[in-house]
């Protein structure tokens, strides 16, 4: 018979709210969000390390994510972009496996008149070809533009130092969508709220590994304390260089001039653009004060004009 390891021993004391009338329900809806939950104590920072060199592009992460988070499908459209029919990260796709076919001249030649293809092009071409695969996800930036942007405090850095959108708070202003330099977040057409990878916050709270990392058959997606992951990744890069894998590099494991490190970082074997990642992500907030300043000056100068006019001629 089945193991009972997860069965509740004590009968659950569910905090059932006292039955309330429509008015108090309305009031609760009004006031509820203003009640702050008591912040849990901070835990060691957790994150993802995605080693693209062992990714087989199976998309288990995508399905495992949809299953755990009960997300709807994004529609059945064949993109023709290699085996990538997911297309992009969105409010309903929190994992996205990318496929990059690297062959000499990947674009099909134009049809010729008689169409005959001469033999000499083939078949003695070298096989130095690559089919790169990478499972993309929210980067869980240490200083996350989306979190900085969020006007409602729906987006928080939770106790695991992950970026988490509180679905009961978000009001769908869309600022986080505009702020994300990686194009991770969109607003759900169903709920009107912004959604993205939660790094399985609910699972982590119970000591479980995020669904995608658990499913990944080749350990391309690894989850754990961020420091351990960084160390593991560093060793892996050295190993790859020893094996003569050119261009093995980390992405987002360390802060740059214009961006913090990412709590979901990658091991790539080519330039980030090839994988659709910005070469040098930029945190918009580096501009904010300057922009305020320029605006203030401009405002003052502008107001000075009517003021002068009023003082000189208006009196």
């Amino acid at each position: 018979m089945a193991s009972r390891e997860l069965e509740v021993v004590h009968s659950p004391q569910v905090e059932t709210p006292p039955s309330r009338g429509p008015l108090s329900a309305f009031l609760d809806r009004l006031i509820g969000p203003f009640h702050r939950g008591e912040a849990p104590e901070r835990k060691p920072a957790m994150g993802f390390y995605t080693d693209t060199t062992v990714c087989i592009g199976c998309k288990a992460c995508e399905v495992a994510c949809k299953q755990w988070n009960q997300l709807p499908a994004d529609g059945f459209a064949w993109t023709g972009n290699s085996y990538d029919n997911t297309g992009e990260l969105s409010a309903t796709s929190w994992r996205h496996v990318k496929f990059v076919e690297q062959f000499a001249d990947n674009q099909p030649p134009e049809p010729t008149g008689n169409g005959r293809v001469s033999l000499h092009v083939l078949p003695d071409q070298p096989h130095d070809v690559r089919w790169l695969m990478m499972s993309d996800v929210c980067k869980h930036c240490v200083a996350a533009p989306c979190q900085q942007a969020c006007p409602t405090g729906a987006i928080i850095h939770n106790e695991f130092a992950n970026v988490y959108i509180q679905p009961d708070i978000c009001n769908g202003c869309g600022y986080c969508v505009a702020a994300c330099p990686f194009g991770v977040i969109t607003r759900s057409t169903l709920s009107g709220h912004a959604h993205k990878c939660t790094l399985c916050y609910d699972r982590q709270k119970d000591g479980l590994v995020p669904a995608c990392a658990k499913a990944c058959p080749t350990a391309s997606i690894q989850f754990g304390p961020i420091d351990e992951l960084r160390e593991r990744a560093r060793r892996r890069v050295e190993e790859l260089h020893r094996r003569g894998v050119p261009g093995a590099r980390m992405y987002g494991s360390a802060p740059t001039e214009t961006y913090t490190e990412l709590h979901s970082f990658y091991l790539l074997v080519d330039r980030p653009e090839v994988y659709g990642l910005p070469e040098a992500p930029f945190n918009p907030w580096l501009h904010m004060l300057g922009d305020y300043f320029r605006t203030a000056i401009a405002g003052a100068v502008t107001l000075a004009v009517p003021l002068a006019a009023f003082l000189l001629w208006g009196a």
Partner: protein
Amino acid sequence: MPGLGASFGRGAATTFQQDLANSDCILIMGSNMAEAHPVGFRWPLKAKEKGATLIHVDPRFTRTSALCDVFVDIRAGSDVAFLGGLVNYVLSNDRWFQEYVLNYTNASTIIQEGFQDTEDLAGLFSGYRGDGETGKYDAVEGHWGYEGCPGGTGDPAGSGQSFRVRMLRGEHGIQGHDLEGGAPSHSAPRKHMTTAPGGTPPRDPTLQHPRCVFQILKRHFARYSPEVVSRVCGCTPEELVRVAELLCANSGRERTSVIVYALGWTQHTTGVQMIRTAGILQLLLGNMGRPGGGIMAMRGHSTIQGSTDLATLYDVLPGYLPQPAADEQHETLHSYVEHEGLPTGYWANFRKFVVSLLKAWYGDAATPDNDFAFSWLPRVDGDYSQLLYFDRMARGEVKGYFLFGQNPGGGGPNAGLHRAGLRNLDWLVVLDWFEIESAVFWKNDPNGPRPAEIKTEVFFIPAAASPEKEGSLTNTQRMLQWHDKAIDPLGDCRSDAWFLYNLGKRLKQLYAGSTDPRDQPLLRLTWDYDFEERPRLPDGTVSRIEGEPDLEKVLQEINGYHLDEADPRTGRPRLVTAFSELKEDGSTACGCWIYSGVFPEPGRNRARERKLTDNPLQPEWGFAWPDNRRVLYNRASAAPDGRPWSQRKKLIWWDQESRHWVGLDRPDFEQEKPPDYRPTPGATGMAAIAGDQPFIMKPDGLGWLYAPGAVKDGPLPTHYEPVESPVGNLLYPRQTCSPTVRTFEGPLNLLAHTPTADYPVVATTFRLTEHYLSGPMSRFNSWLNELQPAMFVELSPELAADRGIVHGGWLTVESARGRIEARAMVTRRLRPLLVEGRMVHQVGLPFHWAFAGEVVGGNANDLTSLVADPNVSMHEAKAFACQIYAGRLAGHTPTPTKSAAPWPTREPVPDTPAAAQPEGRLGHGK
């Protein structure tokens, strides 16, 4: 999988998936492992991390190729040539593992005078009867047998009689009736091929005798030179040599290489011979029965191994006992055993297995007086395999049919013919979860007739999903794993077991009281699997379902029990603990002898065991047949003297103190037989197997480089072109295709014979990670459909340019059977290949789409043909001829029968608050 059985004795993967991590070199061929078995591919990758070399040989650059160190693309269907090239390289460069080959294979065995090889007969072996296009081999007249064995040496039992080539046990497809049915009237006992009356057949340890297997082998493969092979396969000679060198460098005492294959090999008219060639290669390199070695067959379905073992196949009984045929020799139990049994090797126990099966089925009705009711077993008088039977069905010769979770209307080769078959039934019973093609063929087939013209009466019985039922599955490494029932089935959904059990009960009622002898098998059939009390679900609630059979009782029957002994604990017959306990006097019953030991005592269902130990083989997780042996023929992991070949590759070895074979694995050998044991002349049974002969299922205990009479298309593999190919046979110009292939041409099954000019493009079908088979388990699932929503065809930029096809546009693929449309996936992952000095284009077709489900599209299997290889009636989907052109298909295109379900489909089950459970109870997420 006769290829394996013919070479080693058992038709199943010789090792287990985790063992791939112990390999030094992995040749993946005829398999797209990363895509078709992603989780299995975890293990080759672990090996790679440890420094192993991964090689992929395939017509297409796939997700598997992307992760391998070496990729060689060859023309679909030219695998025997490529493998032959490897064998030739090993032989001509003396890279074979001498001590292993000399002692563990039949290399030194001398073959009868008068055997003629394809070298002598331009592509045919001696004993051929036919016109070269279709025919049969007579192995006796062909003198395929061992020297001194009666099969062809004028021994009355064999001489001059048409010998029906049969595979040895360990494979299915044993009968080999020809299409017109009716087994030949006489056949020599199979023992006459390999067993000399006076002990072992003559051998030449020097391997110099011109008629010894080794010399025959050398001559046979001599012409498979890198240059010739490259011209056949389309690869370069250097590529072949590189692969050969890698395999040789990673074989021997210290290192082992493994070969992984899947349906990329089996779905050919020469599939069995491809696997045979791999077997020869692994024997020569000394990789069989050793850690990180062997041949890993990656099978397709959750229990396809189990369904083969338990024989939902027309020509075998459970445990690979041949289904009796309408032969004189099979009239009585005695003559049946005489003909099908072997005096030496483990099959000497044949009678025990048969009698125990009859006792399990007919109980008290099976007595020594009535031959244990042997005559009740139905006799086969023809080929009743799926392909042939649907051919018959299409001609209206079949009345009723049952589908248990299979979808021939979508996934059958030449699915159009399969649908025609379904349309010509009187009644059809479909047990499935969704309205699959085979259930709605009468209303949704875009190219079928109107419903008003289709007579078939259809019963759709909603089946229980796997979490809604319990039972065991046998995975690709022969391991049985039991899955528990989590919840009750929805509504009127029922498990197939429930359906079968209750149908059986009703039929028994309908026939109750009949005295007609023909009805006795049913009336006397043991059929009592009721639960003692209504079963409870894991959460403690009582199951709502009435009449569910207790499948552990069924498994106990499969395991076997002593009829003359009651178990004190239960009062029921005592269960056998291993097949060695089975008796031939009718005192034991056993439903499937190879599974004996899976239920050794009451309450101990070993398929259900989930115990982890520090033994890397994890022997207490599940149960692997036979007798929980994880690596077959593992006696070969030790040198003839019983010591491991090397410390690095030790698995089991002879322990002089305890005088036992010891080690990590259960020995696939008699535990107490010392390495130096030598049989006395005339010894029978296991006594005839020497202490250094690891292949105990073989009458001579040896691995068969040369397989006398084990396969129907020749004792040695030979390259033949597929039935449909644009090029002729470069190696044997006079013999294009397999001389024993069976083709069934008709208006519904036209063929483009090799070499064809009308269909110049080579097509091969393949599986995507995101879908499953013809889609019954994937195209009703939005999470999978969005990942691969449409049928597409992969083709090279050159071909696309040639036909004016643009990437992403529409194209039409046409074969002699039909046409389909698809989106064009123009990619460099496919290359035209230089074959016979001309360019041959290949296209890849995923076979996941048809006309029922959330996503629909062109069905690759509407293009494949119905042809049958001589051994197992396997069709040829991995290489056939087609023509492609730009543009959509005029006429009806399917529209989805289901719209994507909005998700989530129900309110989430409320969370149990943290307060309800102490912290730290959920530590199982690793």
